[in-house]
């Protein structure tokens, strides 16, 4: 019965969006994690979504979403001159992560809205199934 497949599809959407929310939380909480070298500095992380064609039974089946991986942003780090900072390097510079808080907030709202719509789909499908099960009562 294909109504049961909706649970899988909406579930895949919910887990993908919650992962996106997770990376946003990680980025925002590390926005001020300074370090003394470029390589040690935290970089903003973003998930890559793709359509999950592997769970397709035939060419007409509808598809869920999967997370291909998480990539680190290659945007340049913020370098500041703070010679009194305990983590300053030999030249007196510290490195801030390339997290853009405005972008992250927008991402957070988008992820939470998408998560909500998946939950709504799940609830509606559940109602449809319950009504089907109680047919003729």
């Amino acid at each position, binding site marked *: 019965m294909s109504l049961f497949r*909706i649970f899988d*599809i909406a579930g895949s*959407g919910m887990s993908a969006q919650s992962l996106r929310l997770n990376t946003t939380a990680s980025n925002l909480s590390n926005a001020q994690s300074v370090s003394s070298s470029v390589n040690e500095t935290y970089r903003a992380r973003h998930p890559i979504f793709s359509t999950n064609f592997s769970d397709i039974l035939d060419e007409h089946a*509808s*598809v*869920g979403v999967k997370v291909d991986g998480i990539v680190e942003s290659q945007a340049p780090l913020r370098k500041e001159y703070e010679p009194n900072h305990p983590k300053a390097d030999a030249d007196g510079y510290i490195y801030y992560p390339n997290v853009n808080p405005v972008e992250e907030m927008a991402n957070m709202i988008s992820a939470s*809205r998408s998560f909500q719509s998946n939950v709504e789909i799940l609830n509606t*499908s559940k*109602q449809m199934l319950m009504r089907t099960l109680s047919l003729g009562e």
Partner: protein
Amino acid sequence: MRFDLDKVFGIHEQGVRIRERRAELLAGNLANADTPNYKARDIDFKQVLQQAEAGTNTTQMKITNAKHLQTDGFAGMSAELLYRNPFQPSVDGNTVDSQQEKAQFIQNAMQYQASLSFLSGKIKSLKSALKGE
């Protein structure tokens, strides 16, 4: 009057099946609302129902062995998938409009429940006819 138990549910049997299929498709669209290059899909309910009624649109099980059973196929499962024309195309190639998809999904769910109500009524009237009370 001749009574055929197979035809008691009439068009609603096909209707419920196609609505179910459509709900699945729309859920897939919404799950992929943030996937780059995903194209929203849908079926034309009216057309698929007409084909299902005419019996031209059925998925047959492949018979690769003489001992395999012959089936009637599942109407509406091989419905022709269409692509949605986006109102606001986005840069990442995604054509899912969440609001539109959600509205379609809810509408589809309501129509599904309407079909269920009709089916329920049929079952109830059959039951009362059987009981003869």
